[in-house]
């Protein structure tokens, strides 16, 4: 009787702990997106900056913003 009880408790313990081995099920985890300064896999990139160089990308984008959207810089 004692042995049966021990076996049963062992089985129940194993069954209860089995859930601890489950893989995490977090939603939305593991999303990876390459930053834009890494460049694009096509031939449409504009010149003036180097793919992978964050500083040059930022400078090129800033210059593009000022040159194309600020007409006051053209009138001076």
């Amino acid at each position, binding site marked *: 009787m004692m042995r049966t009880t021990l076996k049963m408790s062992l089985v129940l313990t194993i069954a209860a702990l089995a859930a601890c081995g489950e893989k995490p099920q977090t*939603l*939305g*985890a593991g*999303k*990876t*997106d*390459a*930053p*834009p*300064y*890494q*460049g*694009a*896999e*096509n031939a*449409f*990139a*504009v010149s*003036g*900056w180097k793919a992978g160089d964050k500083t040059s*990308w*930022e400078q*090129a*984008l*800033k210059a*593009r*913003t*000022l040159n*194309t*959207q*600020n*007409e*006051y810089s053209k009138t001076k």
Partner: protein
Amino acid sequence: MARMKFVCDAERCIECNGCVTACKNEHEVPWGVNRRRVVTLNDGVPGEKSISVACMHCSDAPCMAVCPVNCFYRTDEGVVLHDKDICIGCGYCSYACPFGAPQFPAAGTFGVRGKMDKCTFCAGGPEANGSQAEFEKYGRNRLAEGKLPACAEMCSTKALLAGDGDVVADIFRNRVVQRGKGAEVWGWGTAYGSKQAGQPPEGAKS
């Protein structure tokens, strides 16, 4: 670099819908989905004002907060993007968004609601930058090509500005100073500082 931001100058917008057309064309957005729209207040009344509205890429985005499957993410540039492979098309984000940015294409035979689609600030999505897969799901990734969003670059009056928030703010502030009015609007002091040179001259019309 600060966060990427849109600003629409209501004094310049002429409701031409060029931004809407540029966006639809650049990303080949499906019929019935408008990532960008032009909203006109007091339409037909003298003094009407129009602004171009899309996803504002909020710093504390409500869509991100309510999404039950956590499909949204924010890039280092402050652009709010989402993963269509995770989106379940529930529509919670459209209820949470104050700008009506999330769009749902009618998909399938019975026109059921498809996965959410919205403005990406021309930054694509989690697929490889500039890849065909990215284009088909999210549209073109112009930022990775060294360009700015097509809507702003195509704006004929330059009412719609897009880019680094600091640079865009400088351009807009300069305009207000040049035109001599606009600094009296609510929030100007918060945005630019009440002591800055954007204050209108005495007696300037508003």
